[in-house]
């Protein structure tokens, strides 16, 4: 580890802190309807869709609207991918996307996952990228933010189970937040050397005389929403390790900020909505402590490197002329600190874009992204998804704290009773059930083992990572697993759908139930949710829930691999 590396992590932290309040204030105005500089466009969209934006929807109607919108847009994408060979903007004349990959891709982008079992530059036309994937990058992010705001409303007000209007939340999130931010960021990317064109691919002759095809495309515009919407799907297979997607250290730094920007701001927005700003900052602090723990561990593990290299006389010490540590699968221009930081940020959030290959990390370094996802991606998290995931853990924490002191649990003046806790438990249990059941199935079925390229604990980690990344709606790949089979494409597609919607339904139900309750004034028995004690208890609950559920899998995968590496064995 170097002072320079730590300085970059510190600068990133300060920048994130500085941007939290401005972003939060802006989003308050967007979602309370007072932001109106695009009002004519907004009204036009409502008129075209026949939407009554003033209608306050019951949680069941809000959830049904979200589900139907997602179903319709997913089916449209499936059809468009299957017909891409007859649709325009296909200069490389790519054939139709095969059925299993079209299903997986449609499900993956609808759910904000962006798991990709294809290489974009050799599979998808510009039309498919621009009209389908980019659309979902905006819509799925806006839908996630809408769900978070709906939950915040359920906690903040008494409204007979009504949570707002899904359609206006979707439109406002897209129009006022995602589109303007993406426009500005895309211009910065172009200025920094990212490309934005509709040209056919370019054939060049290299200095060695070989012929090389350089893929082109509308990259910068998709790059912006890829990070801002925590989508993560790369235009190219190499994702943010590709020079056209992430050309400079400045774009790398900006991408890291873009990933956390909205999620960090939403903690402030939430604090304002519930009229307890200190609680919003307590959530921010909880997320930051967990983020710092993750990045410190990953940076330490990668900077320490592989002891077998040192044992064989290789110089692995950082110096002015080399990074030292483990540089396998990392871009030299980003080095170890920025690779560890990027891997931590992208899996704290549900982004999934990568600037290094996680499969090449040391066992402990690779375990950090895995744990980040398995804790529920609530460390700032996906846009909207991070906040609502954290709030579900807060409800669980308040419930446990209430049991410990023998009082009826209460959160921000609302009693947390059995029906809310039932919904929280449904939310909490679906996630590990999908991960562990599908991983277990795949390590015993021939179809699952067929795609595995590494043996031993590393192979188990590869399967576990894939079945974590998909229901967590992260989309980053550990690699080493050939996922282009009917077995994996189909299971990954359904895993993304279950991980998104089977968790959002009970969450919105809990929001609706809370919205039916009256808000009682705080009393001496109210558990404080603004103190360091609350932060510690919340972190403990998150870690205990995650650790109890996944520790056996970690011990059979990355932990045993780490111990075997110490004794000189690699996989």
């Amino acid at each position: 580890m170097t002072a320079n590396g730590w300085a970059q992590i510190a600068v990133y932290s300060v920048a994130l802190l500085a941007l939290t309040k401005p972003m939060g204030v802006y989003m308050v105005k967007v979602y309370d309807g007072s932001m109106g500089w695009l009002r004519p466009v907004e009204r036009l969209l409502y008129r075209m869709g026949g939407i009554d934006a003033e209608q306050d929807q019951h949680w069941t109607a809000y959830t049904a609207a979200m589900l139907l919108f997602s179903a319709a847009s997913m089916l449209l994408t499936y059809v468009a991918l299957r017909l891409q060979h007859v649709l325009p903007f296909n200069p490389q004349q790519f054939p139709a996307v095969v059925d299993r990959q079209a299903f997986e891709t449609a499900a993956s982008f609808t759910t904000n996952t962006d798991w990709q079992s294809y290489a974009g530059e050799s599979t998808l036309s510009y039309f498919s990228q621009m009209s389908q994937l980019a659309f979902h990058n905006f819509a799925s992010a806006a839908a996630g933010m809408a769900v978070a705001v709906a939950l915040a409303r359920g906690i903040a007000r008494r409204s007979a189970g009504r949570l707002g209007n899904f359609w206006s939340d979707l439109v406002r999130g897209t129009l006022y937040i995602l589109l303007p931010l993406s426009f500005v960021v895309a211009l910065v990317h172009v200025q920094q050397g990212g490309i934005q064109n509709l040209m056919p691919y370019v054939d060049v002759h290299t200095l060695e005389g070989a012929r090389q095809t350089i893929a082109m495309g509308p990259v910068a515009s998709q790059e912006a929403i890829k990070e801002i919407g925590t989508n993560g799907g790369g235009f190219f297979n190499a994702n943010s390790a590709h020079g056209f997607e992430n050309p400079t250290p400045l774009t790398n730094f900006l991408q890291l900020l873009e990933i956390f920007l909205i999620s960090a701001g939403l903690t402030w927005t939430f604090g304002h909505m519930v009229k307890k700003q200190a609680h919003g900052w307590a959530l921010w602090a909880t997320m930051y402590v967990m983020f710092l723990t993750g990045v410190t561990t990953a940076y330490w593990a990668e900077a320490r490197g592989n002891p077998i290299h040192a044992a064989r006389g290789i110089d692995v010490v950082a110096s002015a002329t080399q990074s030292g540590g483990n540089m396998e699968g990392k871009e030299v221009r980003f080095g170890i600190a920025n690779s560890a930081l990027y891997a931590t940020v992208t899996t704290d959030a549900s982004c999934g874009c990568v600037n290094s290959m996680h499969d090449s990390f040391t066992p402990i370094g690779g375990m950090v992204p895995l744990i980040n996802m398995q804790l529920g991606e609530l460390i700032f998290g996906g846009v909207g998804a991070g906040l609502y995931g954290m709030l579900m853990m807060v409800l669980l924490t308040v419930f446990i704290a209430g049991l410990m002191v023998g009082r009826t649990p209460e959160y921000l003046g609302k009693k947390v009773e059995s029906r809310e806790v039932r919904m929280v438990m449904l939310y909490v249990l679906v996630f590990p059930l999908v991960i562990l059941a599908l991983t277990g199935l795949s390590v015993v079925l021939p179809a699952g083992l067929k795609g595995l390229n590494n043996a031993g604990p590393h192979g188990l980690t590869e399967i576990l990572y894939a079945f974590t990344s998909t229901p967590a709606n992260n989309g980053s790949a550990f690699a080493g697993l050939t996922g282009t089979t009917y077995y994996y494409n189909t299971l990954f597609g359904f895993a993304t759908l279950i991980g998104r919607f089977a968790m959002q339904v009970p969450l919105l139900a809990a929001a609706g139930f809370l919205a039916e309750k009256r808000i009682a004034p705080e009393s001496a028995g109210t558990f404080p949710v603004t103190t360091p004690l609350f932060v510690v208890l919340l972190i403990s609950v998150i870690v205990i829930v995650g650790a109890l559920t996944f520790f056996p899998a970690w011990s059979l995968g990355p932990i045993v691999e780490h111990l075997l590496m110490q004794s000189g064995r690699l996989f």
Partner: protein
Amino acid sequence: MMDVLYLVGTLVFFGLMLAYVRACEGLGHDADRGEERTP
């Protein structure tokens, strides 16, 4: 053939999610009435 299976599978999944909404609403009402305590 596979196209039909994937499209039907998608529709069935979202149909199940809509049923899940009703089930969650029902669970909430049961709990509200204290029926979960009925042996």
